[in-house]
């Protein structure tokens, strides 16, 4: 079954980059969102298998979105992979606190990203 990936990123070229890396593999259905509220809305409707969630999102930041996703029983199966420009331990701890399943630091290689995503989907 085709897995649904929701990419939540407000930087246009990174959004494009992520969708190129993952979309070209053909076995994923890619959804997009550019701010926190939109991410929540799409997540609730489409119930994606994984959300690639940028921390610095407009309207609602990544931590807030993750917390809401994880507290919603209808999305209990949805994995969250946080994407962060912050490379400090405190950020990773904060991500764990809000229930993120994975954490990837910018900049990342395409292989690293794909591996992380596949690993999280395998555990599904």
């Amino acid at each position: 079954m085709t897995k649904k990936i929701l990419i939540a990123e407000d930087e246009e070229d990174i959004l494009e980059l992520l969708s190129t890396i993952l979309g070209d593999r053909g076995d994923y259905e890619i959804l997009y969102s550019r701010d926190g509220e939109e991410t929540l809305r799409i997540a609730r409707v489409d119930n994606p298998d994984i959300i690639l969630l940028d921390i610095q999102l407009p309207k609602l930041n990544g931590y807030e979105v993750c917390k809401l996703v994880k507290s919603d029983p209808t999305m209990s199966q949805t994995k969250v992979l946080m994407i962060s420009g912050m490379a400090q331990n405190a950020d990773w701890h904060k991500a764990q606190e809000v229930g993120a399943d994975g954490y990837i630091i910018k900049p990342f290689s395409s292989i690293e990203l794909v591996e992380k995503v596949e690993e999280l989907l395998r555990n599904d």
Partner: protein
Amino acid sequence: MSHYDNIFYRPLTDREQLRIVLFALFAFCILAVSLTFFALSIGKPYMGIRISNNNQGWAVEIADANGSASEAGIREGDRPVEVNGQPAQMFLEKYEKDSVIFGLLIRELTVVDDHGQLKSIALKDSSLSLQSLISQIIMSITCLVFWITGFYVFFKRPKNIAALLLCSCGLALGLSLGGNIAAERAIPTAVHWEIVASTVGPWLLLHFFLVLPEERTRLRANSLVYLIYLPAILTLVFYPLIGYADGQPLPLFRSIRWFEIGVGFLAAAGVAVFNYFHTASIRTRQQMKIVLISCLVAVVPFLVLSVLPEVIWGRTIIYSGFSVLLIVFIPLGMGYAVVTQKLMDIDVVIRRSVIYGLVSLVMAVILSAAIIPIVVSQELLGVPEEIALALAFGGVAAVLFGPTKKGIETLVDRLFYKDRYDYRQIIQSLSISLNSLKDFADISRLIVGTTVNTLNLAGGCLFVKAQSGSFEVGTTQGTYSDTSKQRQLLTLISKRSHMIEFPNSASTACSDLAFLIPLVAAEKEIGILCLSQKTTRQGFSSDDLFLLQGIASVAAIALHSAALIRDVSIRDNFVSIASHELRTPLTSIVGYTDLLLRRDPPEVTRKQWLKNIFDNSQRITAMVDDLLNVTRIQSGKAGLKLERVKLYDAFREQLSMIRESTDKHEFVVDIEPDLPDVLVDRDKFGQVLGNLLSNAIKYSPNGGRITISAHDDPQRHRIVVSVADEGIGIGPEDRDSLFTTFHRIQRPETQGIRGSGLGLYIAKEWTEVMGGEIWLEGELNKGSTFFVAIPTQNSDKVG
């Protein structure tokens, strides 16, 4: 003479240096003359006598106890028989008119007393009595203390006219005493020196008290003040003309002179008392208090131990010469008043002296009470009972000591120190409260609030040194909440050339300002506490000053810790933001490069990916430039290349670049024609405009109009440029820190807006470096307008 002379040190001018050298030369000449007189007189006997002609003929009027005449048994009332080897009548004939002859003219004398007994004295055969020698030595020591104090104070504060006058007073006293001793021994010219010195002396003292107070700084430079010497000058003019004949000063002149000296001393004392009661400056009051106390210390023992017993019992308790020695407290007190910066201890000393004096008195009364029953019941009591009773009273006295002291303290404080409070307790609790605070604003508020409320001040303001080294308002209270006053204070602080000393009275510099207190920690000035006068316009007590000193010290430590925490937090924040801002474009660069290496996309996609890589490289470059600019600003290494630039060209250059980045905005340019060129650093001015324009675009995400205007402000020789947008606006909470490093507006609408938080900081710093000013107008959700005023001609600040 500048307003700030009394607050700040400055180097000596050539004229001042010349004045100091000339005075030093003059002073050493006078010192040499005085020392010569002392040297010539020490150990030499003198007649110590005055003979006057009353109605019953010539008789000894005064016989000085230390003089040789007195040693030979000559007493007041004895009649002269022979003077200087001549029959008395013959010798005294030519002094008939003056009716008086002084000892300095007499070398040999024979008198007859009421009992018909003859007494003779010849100076060449007599020797100086021990008492007379001691008296000479004591006078020399007194003069020495005056000289040493005078010269010390003068060389310590060479440009202080009060110090120079104190030195002059010492010289006048020395010359007057030396001249007097030498004149009695008939040493040539000594009498003239003595008269000149003693005539001028009191007026020098008056001059000293007139110019000592800080608020009379202007009087120091006013030559009219020298009119006070007129009586002394008139007296001295009168002296050679009609005041001196036959080798001695004439009686009439002596009366005029004593009158003139008396008036001089009274005037000096009057001014000193006036200064004490009418001064606005606490420093002056403390200075006068010190002088007053030193005068009391000098005079009271003399009165109590010498004058009073002599009047009552006809003899002194201690030798009167020793009381003269106490006069040394006067120059010491005056010198301390001129030189010292720590004046406030004196009030505490007085309070303690009064309290312990009264406690001793009460204790003495209680112990004396023990004697009464013992004396009364002497016959009934045996020795053991007497001892027991004495011990019992001693015990009572010991038990009562504590409560008595407490009671007297309360009474004295209630009567004389009404506004006294325990400054130690306030400082302690302030220190504890400050320990729990980390935020600059909270710390500043607590410091200013505690100070202003405890001392009942009209206003207070704390300037904190920012990272860039300039002073910024930390917090204000009361009258200093007014921004124009804050600007005035900032100007005052920035004009100084040296670290401010505390305590100082800043009242001459700014009428309602009482103190500028530097907050120093780790040898660095980290803030300045500006305090106004009290709302009641009362002066500051010594406790107030102790409190201020204590507050300054705990405040400095608290601000220093907060600054360290701020620096660490700013650095952490910097690393975090810089890392994030660099990582985001790096992600694109790494990601697309990775894709290009792994895949072979169609030409169009390839070009797009390469463009993404290029754009993000540009973004990193801009970020690195901003970081470098901040480093340059903060290290003070921002070089400035001023040139005349046409405003329109500068805008066109920036607009052409910025227009490409947006299609949602409409640009309106409203620049007055024929504007004069601005005098700016082209690159830095370009950055200022560029940063304002890019902010206008970023913070109006829904688009809208961006209006660029410029108009001339010929009166202030500047052009005011403005960039207005219709964006999200800036709330009051962001206004204060808008121009600081890494400040980002944290609102839901700004979460997607990228930026380093450095643009406005750089814009402000560059504008100010170029002698301009930057400010903001606008409301939340109603757009913002940034103004930049740039000079059109060279000002002091430029270059």
